[in-house]
């Protein structure tokens, strides 16, 4: 069924009995051309593009819980391509372009909202660094504007312009950036992939990666062995654990990142705002909640919870830049489990095992990368060679030194 206003009306009249599951509750077949491990946004997007753009339809996505139960459902929903380094910009911009046509592609409204992303700067040096970034974006055909303090005031008059510890002197704006409804992205990809024949198998955990003679032959799961010619791992948050099934070690450490929502309120904050003198970013959802986050918890963690220290730190940052938030209340906070790579940039690459491919190390960038990561991973799996936009995201870059370190903090994942 194609979703439309007409269908909505029709079903309103017949008591909604015409609606059907958005994806089948598939059980594993004995073998597939491709098995994707991980039913998050990335895994489902990979399956969708494999089927739609690369002609690979005999695909299963296996998910240990319910689809979208990892970081796809635990992020702050921001989409943007305002990166600094040539290794990153083309990739995230490919993603922005896919976001821009996503709903029509999926026939599912993921509420992609290009409401603008404003990064605040607080010193001349920071403004110059933003200029470098904005210019790099422009050279790559990405929209970027460097605006002064008065223009910032026009966009966000509620910021603390007068009493702040770190004065606001301007900002970098990407107007095409914004937000998308994270769960809907997962469901939309699932529905679209399912339509093209992809089996989405929930409650099915990978317990082993079976290879013979250096070549992958399938995945052991809690629902039995599933044969596969090619296997893609897309399990951010659990990358090290799953890679260990194939005796691989990854340049990744796992950390918790907290995020927060407030109670719903009438429209207050229009665009995405990022505080440049600390760790804080915020936007308002269509439902009215302010959605925000800050710094990583500083220690490796697989627990989906954060510390009071960072909880408080985020509130301090919020009040430092938006003192009007004082009486608004945090409704809920949660912790996502981040694949933090050693240079802060992702990995999409083949592994030493033939037919086994890896996608991970997304740090904070995973949600916004969903379409591009899915597309590039599908490209890699289908063709055996990287998509041009993801070509720098190689596993061997740490050995060669071709790291892509946006922040320049080196191999300290908790600082990226």
């Amino acid at each position, binding site marked *: 069924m194609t979703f439309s206003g007409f269908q909505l009306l029709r079903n309103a009249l017949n008591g909604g009995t015409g609606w059907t599951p958005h994806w089948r509750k598939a059980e594993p077949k004995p073998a597939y051309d491709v098995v994707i491990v991980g039913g998050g946004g990335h895994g489902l997007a990979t399956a969708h593009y494999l089927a739609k753009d690369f002609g690979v339809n005999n695909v299963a996505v296996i998910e240990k819980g319910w689809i979208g139960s990892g970081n796809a459902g635990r992020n702050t929903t921001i989409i943007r391509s305002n990166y600094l380094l040539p290794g990153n910009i083309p990739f995230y911009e490919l993603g922005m372009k896919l976001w821009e046509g996503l709903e029509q592609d999926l026939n599912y409204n993921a509420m992609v909202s290009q409401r603008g992303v404003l990064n605040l700067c607080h010193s001349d040096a920071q403004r110059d660094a933003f200029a470098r970034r904005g210019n790099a974006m422009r050279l790559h055909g990405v929209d970027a504007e460097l605006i002064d303090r008065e223009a910032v005031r026009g966009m966000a008059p509620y910021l603390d312009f007068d009493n702040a510890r770190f004065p606001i002197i301007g900002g970098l704006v990407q107007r095409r950036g914004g937000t998308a409804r994270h769960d809907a992205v997962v469901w939309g990809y699932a529905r679209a992939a399912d339509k093209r024949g992809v089996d989405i198998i929930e409650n099915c955990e990978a317990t082993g990666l079976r290879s013979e003679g250096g070549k992958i032959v399938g995945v052991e799961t809690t629902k039995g062995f599933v044969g596969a010619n090619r296997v893609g791992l897309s399990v951010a948050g659990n990358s090290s*654990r799953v890679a260990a099934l194939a005796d691989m070690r990854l340049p990744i450490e*796992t950390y918790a990142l907290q995020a927060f929502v407030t109670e719903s309120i009438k429209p207050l904050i229009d665009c995405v705002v990022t505080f440049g003198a600390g760790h804080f970013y915020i936007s308002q959802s269509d439902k009215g909640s302010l959605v925000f986050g800050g710094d990583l918890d*500083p220690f490796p963690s*697989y*627990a989906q919870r954060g510390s009071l220290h960072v909880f408080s730190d985020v509130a301090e940052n919020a009040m430092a830049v938006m003192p009007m938030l004082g009486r608004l209340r945090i409704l809920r906070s949660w912790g996502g489990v981040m694949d933090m790579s050693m240079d802060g940039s992702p990995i999409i690459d083949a592994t030493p095992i033939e037919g086994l491919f890896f996608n991970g190390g997304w740090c904070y960038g995973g949600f916004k990368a969903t379409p591009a990561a899915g597309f590039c991973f599908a490209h890699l799996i289908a063709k055996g060679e990287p998509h041009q936009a993801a070509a720098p995201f190689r596993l061997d870059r*740490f050995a060669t030194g071709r790291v892509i370190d946006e922040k320049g903090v080196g*191999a*300290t994942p908790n600082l990226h």
Partner: protein
Amino acid sequence: MLINCPYCGPRDLLEFTVKGEARARPDAAADLDSEASRAGFVDAVYLRDNPAGRHKEHWLHASGCQSWLVIERDTRTHEIFGASLVASDAEGAKS
């Protein structure tokens, strides 16, 4: 999180900075420019252990006594099994 600093006693997370896996620096091989030497450092710097479970880590009590500690901790539950000075500071620590 409370970390029981061997010198200061139980202290809040905010006083600490975390470096990551407590792994020894590779021995500087005779030939510093050899492939083996480089591979050892690549491994130590980039391919650190990342278990879901017990993990030995280097923490610095930065706002406290400025001791580097080895902390053994469960990354799933955050339970801490022990914290010790990274290198027992000669006789001083014992006297």
